């Protein structure tokens, strides 16, 4: 009976210690990294703004050539045929 209790306690202790085990912090020397670049702050309007000119500026940001440059390049690529 005593032996059984001892085994039970030992197993429990092992289980508990395994659960609470935390990996030691890495000891490798960290390579110095370059300083993080300073984020470029642009004067674009905030997305939450409901000012008509801010909203208009955001609309303007969706303007593009519709792929015309790609289509022109495609035409050039076909020149050798």
């Amino acid at each position, binding site marked *: 009976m005593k032996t059984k209790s001892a085994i039970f306690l030992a197993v429990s202790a092992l289980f508990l210690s395994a659960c609470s085990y935390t990996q030691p912090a890495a000891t490798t020397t960290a390579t110095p990294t370059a300083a993080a670049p300073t984020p470029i702050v642009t004067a674009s309007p905030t997305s939450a703004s409901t000012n008509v000119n801010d909203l208009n500026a955001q609309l303007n940001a969706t303007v593009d050539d519709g792929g015309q440059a790609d289509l022109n390049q495609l035409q050039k*690529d076909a020149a050798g045929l």
Partner: protein
Amino acid sequence: MKKLTSLLCLLALTLIVASPVFAETATRSGKMNREEFRTRLSAIRDEKKKAIVERIDQRIAQINANRTGIMTRHLTKIEEILDRIEARAFEVEKTGKEISAVKTAIATARTAIATAKTTVTTQAAKTYTIDITTEDKLDSAASAARTAFAKDLQAAHQTVVTARKTVRDVLKALANVVGEKLTNTTEK
């Protein structure tokens, strides 16, 4: 009971085995076109021309995926802007101002956005195959595929431009109601 279970198992197995066959049948027509294109492409003797045709074929698919992706993102943004304009319009309405012109413009814009979304989705699913016949007709075959693609892509882009323009019209109507001066409204 055992017989019934065996029968059900057999039926399930049959379905599992047969389903890929059905799926293949559904895509066979599209697959045949591509296979035929690859076969005809490999038959071109001029390696330089072969490379050009192959590149054009790949680039059309790439440009289509890229541009329709951009159009979709822009439409999402345009719709988001419209939502904010609408929210502002409702706030303005609460102060007792007349916003019926804004509401009408919003309805028009919603329709234009929906049309553009459908067009762009359809465009994204399109494929263009260069109809290779003889080597001396490679130029015209590539040109035909390229022209058809360009026409479709520009048409899809135009729906995005229209959607943006209608949202800008909503903005103009709102600016008119609130008495704010709107600048830089020229649609490029």
